[in-house]
């Protein structure tokens, strides 16, 4: 039978997945990206310094990643000498944004797939917040409304956590996580100006100053978030893993992994990074070469040529293109399909033995859960990878903020040349993000973004290879083929962002 499982909620944007189910197993899956705006078209002819602002609006969930990728591309194009404070502030702003995003993903976007919200009706304790939620759910259920307790009900059928205390703890942490996400965003905004959509990030640094009265509140907020990560988030991820261990083997993508590396440790854009870059195939890591990336469009709704390199990218929409089923292009690396995101960041770094804390945490949690590190390529593996990265990043941000030199410059002087080009690569929370800018006569002549969910939710490429998410869905056993809570858990483990994927 053929079943469309979209619209898929608790992700960013407009995604449908067409599935074919036989004998309770998904035998085919096609990811349909259903929204298109045309950023790369309307960026042409604009002032290049507009681009770190405009491209943030590709995604309001991870705008800072786009600001950093765009700024780095321009730094390379303008050959800026970024002062140390400038790079550190980029890191502090983007890193705090990652912490919020990991918490948002686990609690607001995924928890309702595992946690039984109705368990709150059994609450008998004295916590005012849980008591209030209990009374609200009870009043809603008794109200005779057609859709009581929305947006938390209705929900799909399936197995949910059946441990009362674990459910109540997770519901409490769902609420507390929202406050922690705010704190992480406030920390970022101290230097970024506001969240979402920072105005202070520029190529060459940040317009905000490095002042003690800003650094100390930043550290204080990050410390609170760090405590939550260690005392609530990581235990909750492990609790879900303990109750749903089958998901260490469900949702495995069938290609390689790509990470651009994260958090430059020096002012130059190509500095060594906290997390190492690389392309991982069959246990071997090679250096990233942007020239190996080509984007196929035979199954995407464009009439522009297929299999183009990033530098030569073209985009002409053709909404009714025959047989094309998605607005998402299919980027491939040397012709191969890759997964990007938290598991890719961790596996690429771990395989190289680069960051000792990543290695220690992967080994410790893998041993606790009784899995091999390669099983980070799974639904639970992606969740655990985010938790590991959150722990590593929170410590890094506290140390990095100590390295700010108060009173010293935070920005390079900018004087965009008449013609130039540059790549900017970073890691958004959802994975590898690449921007390319070419400037002619002081204006943007070409702008191209190859975005994490473009990789993960890509349609079949011109060779017929499925995208990472499609490949992770195929072979999944589903109890209720009409609803497929199992497939949705797989999709959400990638944290897809469709506004990013198509833009």
């Amino acid at each position: 039978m053929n079943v469309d499982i979209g619209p898929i909620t608790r992700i960013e944007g407009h995604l449908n997945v067409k599935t074919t189910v036989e004998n309770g197993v998904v035998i085919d899956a096609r990811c349909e990206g259903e929204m298109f705006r045309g950023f790369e078209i309307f960026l042409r002819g604009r002032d290049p310094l507009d681009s770190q602002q405009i491209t943030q609006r590709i995604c309001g969930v991870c705008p800072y990643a786009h600001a950093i990728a765009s700024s780095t591309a321009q730094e390379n194009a303008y050959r800026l000498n970024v002062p140390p404070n400038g790079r550190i502030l980029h890191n502090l702003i983007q890193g705090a944004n990652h912490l919020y995003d990991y918490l948002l993903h686990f609690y607001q976007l995924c928890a309702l797939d595992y946690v039984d919200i109705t368990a709150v009706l059994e609450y008998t304790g004295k916590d005012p917040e849980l008591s209030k939620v209990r009374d609200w759910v009870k009043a809603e259920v008794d109200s005779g409304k057609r859709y009581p307790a929305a947006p938390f009900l209705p929900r799909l059928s399936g197995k949910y956590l059946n441990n009362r205390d674990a459910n109540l703890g997770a519901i409490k942490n769902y609420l507390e996580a929202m406050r922690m996400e705010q704190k992480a965003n406030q920390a970022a905004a101290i230097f970024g100006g506001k969240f979402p959509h920072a105005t202070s990030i520029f190529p060459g640094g940040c317009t905000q100053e490095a002042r003690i009265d800003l650094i100390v509140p930043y550290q204080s907020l990050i410390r609170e978030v760090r405590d939550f990560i260690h005392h609530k988030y990581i235990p909750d991820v492990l609790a879900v893993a303990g109750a749903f261990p089958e998901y260490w083997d469900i949702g495995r993508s069938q290609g390689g992994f790509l990470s651009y590396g994260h958090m430059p440790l020096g002012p130059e854009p190509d500095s060594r990074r906290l997390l190492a870059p690389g392309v991982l195939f069959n246990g071997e890591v090679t250096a990233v070469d942007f020239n190996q990336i080509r984007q196929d469009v035979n199954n995407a709704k464009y009439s522009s040529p297929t299999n183009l390199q990033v530098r030569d990218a073209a985009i002409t929409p053709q909404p009714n293109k025959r047989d094309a089923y998605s607005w998402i292009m299919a980027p491939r690396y040397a012709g191969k399909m890759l997964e990007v995101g938290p598991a890719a960041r961790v596996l690429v770094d771990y395989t190289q033995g680069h960051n000792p804390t990543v290695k220690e945490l992967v080994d410790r949690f893998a041993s606790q859960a009784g899995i091999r590190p390669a099983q980070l390529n799974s639904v639970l593996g992606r969740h655990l990878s985010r938790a590991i990265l959150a722990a590593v990043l929170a410590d890094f941000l506290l140390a990095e903020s100590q390295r700010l030199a108060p009173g010293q410059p935070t920005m390079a002087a900018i004087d965009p040349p008449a013609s130039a080009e540059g790549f900017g690569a970073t890691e958004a929370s959802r994975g590898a993000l690449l921007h390319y800018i070419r400037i002619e006569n002081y204006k943007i002549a070409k702008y191209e973004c190859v975005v994490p969910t473009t990789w993960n939710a890509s349609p079949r490429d011109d060779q017929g290879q499925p995208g990472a998410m499609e490949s992770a869905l195929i072979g999944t056993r589903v109890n209720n083929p009409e609803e497929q809570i199992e497939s949705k858990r797989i999709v959400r483990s990638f944290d897809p962002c469709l506004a990013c994927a198509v833009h």
Partner: protein
Amino acid sequence: MFDRRKFIKLAAALAAAFGTKGLSQPAKAALNEIDPRNVPKLLYLQGLSCTGCSISLLQAESPSPVSMITDYSQLVFHTDLSATSGAQAMELINSFIDGEAGDYVLAIEGAIPENMPEACIIDHKPFADYLERAAHTMSGAVAIGSCACDGGIPAAEGNPTGAIGLAEFYRKRNLTQPVINIRGCPIHPDWVWHTITHLALAGNPSMINGSPRVFFERRLHELCPRYYDFQEEIFAEKLGDRGCLFRLGCLGPITFADCPTRWWNGGRTWCVDTNAPCIGCASPNFARKKDLPFYRLSEGKGRNR
């Protein structure tokens, strides 16, 4: 060198370019059908959006986002928070839009691709179809963010989709639905939630140019803590400098919003406090024109080709 006369001349030129004269459209956005004794049920749908406004709504502190969607309103559907999905979600959405599930307020984030309906699809149907059907059943609509109000970034010059805002979408179809416009890229969470609480507790807020007066009545420049710097002609010369940011391109003089007194992210900061010029994200013509860059750093270079 940069005297007040030059400032006023430049401000007038900017105002003309951004068409602020067009702001005085009839302020007929009133949700008269709403009974303040019942909290509004919000059916929240996204068009050509980045979800930034939804994420901004989660940054509210008092009341908290959870309190907002359980005490002061009911969020019957939101794609980022709803437990439901797929066919079950569509049954819920369609039952409201078909008028079978009672009164509701349509909350829209994102623009509408007027010339390319296939550019935004929900359950095999264009986003526009849902808006047309909802026009006959909703109590009113709140357009959340610059995209939903005027097209925003997706409507930037040279865009391929013909993106427009909700009010224009209804105007073109002779559907006279009341729309409250809350501009900003993204919106400040207070601007939306305080509008919702006003609807829940006291009915329609006082409006100016289709938006709640209390947030959008005055120019950012008038309220700016750096107005003194402007008067004393203490101007930032380069990015990262303190002082009035007008010479770098600050659009505070033509942007109507209360950022300078409200501040962002728990009141910790706002753009100008980080020495970043206002880019006019709450302006109806935000980012619209290619030849009006956000920053005046490369003035004279590559212009008027």
